[in-house]
């Protein structure tokens, strides 16, 4: 496979074509709007939280709207699937792990991290193209920003 074919995995092309979680939520606790100023990609994402049986907080639903390249659109789509229903702590960990994946220059992470990321490991090839990393991170940045706004996620410690 050429590195371009590794970049555009079938899973990415499929998500870009029929994205998940697209459409803004009517009921939500926080919203984030992120742009990639170099190419004009944008995503507006809303989160709705809920309490689970044991009193923890879960990401009940995310809904988003946006425009951009296949990498940015597929990434926010895969993310929506992964975090829906997940405890906030898990969503945070997913975000951190995905960011780490983007810094591996295409080498990938350890098995445990890749198991956690599931479908999002399809983006491993993106990390070979520095200009595309921002595209893949756009939705994750929106999610993190929205969760920080709700107060359930702490701002990154400096």
């Amino acid at each position: 496979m050429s590195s371009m074919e590794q970049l555009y995995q079938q899973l990415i092309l499929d998500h870009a074509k029929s994205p998940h979680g697209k459409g803004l939520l009517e009921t939500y606790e926080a919203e984030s709007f992120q742009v990639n100023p170099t190419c004009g990609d944008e995503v507006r994402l809303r989160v709705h939280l809920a309490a689970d049986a044991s009193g923890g907080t879960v990401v009940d639903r995310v809904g988003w709207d946006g425009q951009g390249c296949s990498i940015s659109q597929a990434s926010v789509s895969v993310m929506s699937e992964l975090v829906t229903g997940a405890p906030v702590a898990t969503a945070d960990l997913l975000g951190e792990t995905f960011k780490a994946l983007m810094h591996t220059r295409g080498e990938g992470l350890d098995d445990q991290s890749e198991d956690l990321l599931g479908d999002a490991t399809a983006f491993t090839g993106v990390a070979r193209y520095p200009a595309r990393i921002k595209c893949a991170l756009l939705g994750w940045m929106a999610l993190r920003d929205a969760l920080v706004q709700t107060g359930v996620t702490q701002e990154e410690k400096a």
Partner: protein
Amino acid sequence: MTATLEPQAPGRRSALTSAELAAVRADFPLLSRTVRGGRPLVYLDSGATSQKPDVVLDAEQDFYLQRNAAVHRGAHQLAEEATEAFEQARVEVATLVGAAADEIVWQPNATAAINLVAYAMSNATLGRGGRAARRFALQPGDEIVVTEAEHHANLVPWQELCARTGAVLRWIGVDDDGRLRTDELGTVVTDRTRVVAFSHASNVTGAVTDVGAFVRRAQEVGALTVLDACQSVPHLPVDLHALDVDLAAFSGHKMLGPTGVGALYGKREVLAAMPPVLTGGSMVEVVTMETTTYAPPPQRFEAGSQMVAQAVGMGAAARYLHELGMDAVAAHEEQIAALLVDAVAAVPGVRILGPTDTRDRLAAVSFVVDGVHAHDVGQVLDDAGVAVRVGHHCAQPLHRRLGVAASTRASAAVYTTAEEVAVFAEALGRVRPFFGLSDQGES
């Protein structure tokens, strides 16, 4: 080796012969490298920045190896030679654009040059520069006119100047073809207009502006004209005196020169009346603890130590273009423009932003591919070794006007070949199929 053409009659319009083009390409070492696993580079991003010929690199190196010293100060021989190289470069740049040497002010780039004018107007508005500078002073209700096609560099500084002074920003629109609505000049430019700032050629659509129409209307109402000549100077014969604009800006790095250097042109009497912006060493006459008198232009606008080696490089680039002959450069690029337009227009599901005819247009062609974002288009082209620009090319309002968020741009320069356009065309044809989109009647 430097490509030099046969002596030519003025006004010669014949393009480069294939031998001349090969000689030009041999002057640009970078053009022969490969990318992405051994593919020959097809560089179609000259609108963003051009590649540099040996003569430019040599001029900079020679300056550092042989002549380096502080300019305009010191009495030693090196200082003399450095100053001469610096000032000779100013002559070369002036000659290329039909200006006098003392009408050329070194600036870091076109963006800095345009900001210099905007801040000089702010200073004049605050009363600096005395009576002579009154023509630059603005009042609330005065108007500044730009166009909807501007690069952000020729838009945001004017928005900011309006915010600082209470002046109002107005603009000339763009038609569906990407051409400026020169028919709006009569209504948008009025007695309240103090500045008309516009580009000579669009970095997105490649459309070349009818500068005469803008200048005539601005002069009727006594407004200053500011020309963004970034995209014209590298590709077209430009005679600033004949165009009769008051001020103009262009960057060295887009015209085969180094980064870090550009020029502000101003008519002698316009620069003479303009108050300084950056102040300090090198731009003064007499300094006491209370007051300072300022040097005449261009030094008045060149505060502090200058980018001397880069200026020398920009001078070498100007001489290189001048020796090739801008008529020949323009004629060659006109052929490339026609090939580019035809190549893009021939691909199903691809739409050109801007004129599809080759009249008054540069070899810069922006386009959108149905169903594929510009970033993804650029990636497929890159995989074929083809370097293009993707995004909004620092012209968001123009993209919004043309109904898209982003586009892909292929832009040429004097060294671009028909073979390169063919490689680009072939790769562009693969984009939609790669993303699983096919066109009716095709498999």
